[in-house]
């Protein structure tokens, strides 16, 4: 891919325990990565993921706390099942599951988010620009029936 792949990063606001890591995400994220900060990964509605995909996200990273270390106790557990199923469903329709990655961060992880994002970007570059489901980009309105 010639340009850097567009990546949407859904980040739980509690998962980056080290100050330098959070600062990096807030200030030094490459412009091809769009940050969406949430109070908890449990807040992520499958609609958000679909919205990002339709807007042209070549890849999606969801970063959150470990399932049993959630700031809101069971917040991210309640969404786990839905996310799992939704990703299977998207794969079924033609958006590869490998374009979506979950990163569960632990207390002692330092510098991991940067590594994961770099790794992910390399993977996505290999998969190529997304075509399936990225339909909000540049589609004219309502010319289907006329």
């Amino acid at each position: 891919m010639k340009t850097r792949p567009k990546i949407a990063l859904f980040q739980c606001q509690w998962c980056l325990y080290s100050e330098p890591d959070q600062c990096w995400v807030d200030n030094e994220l490459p412009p091809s990565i769009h940050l969406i900060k949430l109070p908890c990964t449990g807040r992520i509605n499958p609609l958000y993921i679909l919205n990002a995909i339709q807007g042209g996200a070549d890849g999606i990273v969801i970063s959150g706390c470990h399932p049993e270390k959630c700031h809101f106790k069971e917040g991210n557990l309640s969404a786990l099942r839905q996310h799992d199923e939704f990703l299977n469903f998207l794969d079924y329709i033609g958006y590869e599951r490998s374009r979506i990655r979950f990163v569960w961060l632990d207390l002692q992880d330092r510098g991991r988010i940067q590594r994961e994002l770099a790794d992910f970007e390399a993977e996505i570059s290999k998969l190529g620009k997304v075509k399936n489901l990225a339909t909000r980009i540049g589609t004219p309105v309502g010319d289907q029936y006329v």
Partner: protein
Amino acid sequence: MMYILEKKNIDQTLTDWSAKYKVFAPQKVENFSQFLPVEPSSELALDNPHNTRYPPKALFLPQSEALLKYNRQLNKLEELIIAPKPRIIFGIRPCDASAVSLLDTVFHTGEYDDPYWIARRDATILIGMGCKEPCQTCFCTTVGYGPFNHDGLDGLITEVDETYFIEVFTEKGKQLFLDLPVASEDQQRIVKSIQTNAEEKMQPAFDTTNLKQKLDQNFESDYWSKISESCLGCGVCTFLCPTCFCFDIVDEVQRNERVRNWDTCMFKIYSQEASGHNPRPTRVERTRQRIMHKFSYWIDQIGKIGCTGCGRCIRYCPVGLDIRAMLKTASTLESEGINAR
């Protein structure tokens, strides 16, 4: 003036017209037909005994239409002025064409002129295909129209064996057929008798005498809750109806566009007010609205029934509701002498 076009020449004729016009004709889609632009590879469905499922009003009032575009970088608003290429709609049924001319009274009144509608209407020539056999769901004659009605048309085809006999009513329509042979007196007589025959085949579906008064005076009657009980409240009847025109304008923020879409009074949110109040809170009021609008309020506005009898609402209703049966029951209602409106 009546012209003769042999059916075997139709492909060539449409191709010839495509040089200067965008030609639309009914084409095969899945197991039904739809008005689509004619291409060399098109599979025409002119012989389909029905009208298309999706109504041709979409060719004048598209289901979704962008009105304005906003450019965030330049902080500018761009009006989307439409300048449609001249078009021919070929094979439209008289019920759909008379619906277009009914909608002219909404979108082109002199006082309220919709530039989008007018631009498309002015750029279009409508050549209709008359109906020799009624379908089980047709009732155009009951509401004041007919299988060979001229309203809204520039020309009308009567099919006789392998030939199309085309009557033209306007200059716009005439110029398409000037190279064709003209029908003789005898041929014109045959065509006229086929048309009269077709009209006679249609039985009245319900009694329209005093129908408006009966509906008005029974506004609060429990007749409405009886007929609307199985209605699902979907948009099938309104979206497939050639005379329904309600629309909603939405700002699609993610697209930076202001879009006009078809709307339907059958949805609850249609009449939902910002305060939370809904003047049509249940199915009963909403179904009543649909029937009153078509068979009473349209008459208040322009003196005609707002329905052309195409039958799509009957054919495609998921629960098998039949507006003819509803109105047959309505025509038996007593005029209570109380004007509830």
